[in-house]
């Protein structure tokens, strides 16, 4: 053991020890800024949460940075400023998130009930709404027809998109070579960028040519949604198929298994959890699409279970029509309430789909034994 005796530590003038602020400076400045912000906002035109937040943040940014610049130097000050800005950015981003969820819950729960989910809008008029507001009649009207419509249209869109998307991704990963594969990859990318309203216009134009101008039904809506859904399915499945280790394929070939059986029995099952959760997420994405359905499936207040004829309501279109065209112009509140309740229903459906996707990914993941 060679241990030198340590020289006495800490000479007076140190090149390492920079001037540093005490450890809790930031926290103290933060609390002080909140107090000052509250005071300032009270002085300038009365207290409001927004004014308080903005002023406090500004005070904190200025004081904290200046203090650091004076004591610790420019570089440290810049570092602290950026840190504070990054935290601020995150704080700002929380505002819309919380406020969207809060307003949907707060406004939506008012009318969200089994009744709402089980009745349609047939024969509900503005007069009912006025009477409901005056307390003369019960609140009626729900979103059953829209839920049925959304379910049928989305299911149809999935039936169209999933086989096409999955087979295409198999082609790209397992067979695709040369110009055709490159063209497909390129145009799938192009398709990803199609605005949803353009997809709707395409379906509308297609059906206008095939079945006459002004044709609107659930199937046209499903076609529009498919245009949006196919590239998502291709992309996610392709990604999942690509991470299947090549050794598995080679092991199957070495056993004399033909290629198509290798794909069906080995490759796809290995990737199935990822594919299924990708498909579920794609469904969750199109279930909330509004614009393409407005121009293809139209609006109605009655239940329609046949997607191949007549207009069909969907949940997003229901939200839109209740919010923008209330039944009663003079007392729109019941319609607004219905819009919020439908928005809540829609969000619940999307969240459930997202959760299901996560569950699928976890439950059906290949067992690794770890």
């Amino acid at each position, binding site marked *: 053991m060679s241990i030198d005796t340590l020289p006495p530590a800490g000479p007076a003038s140190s090149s390492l020890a920079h001037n540093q602020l005490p450890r809790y400076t930031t926290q103290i400045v933060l609390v002080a800024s909140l107090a000052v912000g509250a005071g300032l906002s009270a002085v300038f035109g009365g207290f409001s949460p927004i004014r308080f937040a903005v002023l406090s943040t500004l005070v904190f940014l200025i004081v904290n940075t200046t203090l650091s610049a004076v004591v610790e130097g420019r570089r440290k000050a810049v570092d602290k400023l950026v*840190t504070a800005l990054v935290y601020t*950015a995150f704080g700002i981003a929380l505002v819309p998130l919380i406020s969207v969820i809060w307003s949907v819950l707060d406004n939506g729960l008012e009318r969200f009930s089994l009744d709402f989910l089980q009745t349609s809008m047939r024969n509900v008029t503005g007069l009912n709404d006025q009477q409901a507001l005056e307390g003369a009649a019960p609140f009626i009207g729900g979103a059953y027809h829209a839920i049925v419509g959304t379910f049928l249209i989305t299911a149809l869109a999935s039936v169209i998109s999933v086989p096409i998307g999955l087979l295409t991704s198999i082609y790209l990963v397992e067979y695709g070579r040369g110009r055709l594969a490159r063209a497909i990859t390129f145009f799938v990318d192009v398709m990803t960028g199609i605005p949803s309203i353009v997809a709707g216009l395409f379906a509308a134009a297609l059906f206008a040519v095939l079945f006459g101008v002004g044709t609107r039904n659930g199937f046209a809506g499903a076609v529009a949604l498919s245009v949006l859904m196919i590239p998502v399915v291709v992309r996610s499945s392709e990604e999942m198929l690509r991470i299947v280790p090549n050794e598995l394929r080679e092991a199957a070939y070495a056993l004399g298994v033909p290629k198509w059986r290798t794909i069906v029995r080995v490759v796809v099952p290995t990737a199935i959890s990822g594919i299924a959760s990708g498909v579920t997420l794609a469904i969750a994405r199109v279930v909330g699409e509004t614009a393409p359905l407005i121009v293809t499936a139209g609006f109605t207040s009655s239940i329609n279970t046949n997607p191949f004829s007549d207009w069909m309501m969907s949940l997003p279109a229901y939200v839109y029509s209740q919010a923008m065209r209330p039944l009663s112009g003079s007392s729109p509140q019941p319609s607004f309430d219905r819009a919020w309740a439908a928005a809540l229903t829609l969000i619940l459906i999307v969240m459930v789909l997202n959760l299901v996707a996560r569950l699928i990914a976890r439950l059906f993941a290949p067992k690794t034994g770890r």
Partner: protein
Amino acid sequence: MTTTATPPPTERRSAPPRAKARPGDRIFSRSAQVAGILILIILAGVAAFLVREALPTFTADPSEIDGGEGFLSYVWPLVFGTVAAALIALVVATPLALGIALFISHFAPRRLAQGLGYVVDLLAAIPSVVFGLWGIQWLAPQVQPAWAWLADNLGFIPLFTGPASATGRTMMTAGLVLAVMILPIITAISREVFLQTPTLHEEAALALGATRWEMIRMAVLPFGRPGIISGIMLGLGRALGETMAVAMVLSTGGFTWSMLTSGNNTIAAEIALDFPESSGLKTNTLIAAGLVLFVITLAVNMFARWIVSRRSEFSGAN
């Protein structure tokens, strides 16, 4: 591009063990190929039907088009509105998104970061119509005083000319709603590339005596730049094509420079608002406008890709 996951099928078939090629293989590979070709057909169909239905607009007498002065003068205010709303969204969302992405990747405690990433993804899952509803009923009244203040104090700038709309249903508000909608897109992509920054580069910067921010500027941002740009461009593409937020929030009208009064409209919102009740030439005109939107978003996406592929020499791919 396709990676060489398996040897090309032609090579495998060159010395078949059995003379008869497996029919299962042929059927399967052919159907996979057909599915791929179907996508090309669908896309060709989208283009063909849009062009076909849009054509009457260009052959029709200019006086018959909405506004009476031909398609170009009909569509350019809509293009202006589309671009303006998207730019407002981009200006607001980009710095915020980069901040959040950095927060999740380099500032937040590790355990918290994953949860936060999930929360941001949640924002992306909310349907656009819900954002529209939120924008018109909650956000518009909240931000109206801010617009009034802007119009009073910065009214000399053409974009802020007053008087500000009393309902708050303006381009600025629509742009804000769009910003909230594209925030998760830019955040998610930037976060992914920030997290992929090689530890080696981060440590190299720290070992030179860089502060956290200097390390981010030296190692993380340069590495993530192509990712950031493609995230921004994807967000822009989404903002350009987004319909419902604008259709619901904006109180539409004719062209005006001011972003604080009602007026202006975007292509997507114009289609959503007018198409259901349109007929005849108006339908064709709207489809032609849709075609213009398609071309714009296509150009943005292509541009994004070109930027990402450029300067690959310095990209750190090797």
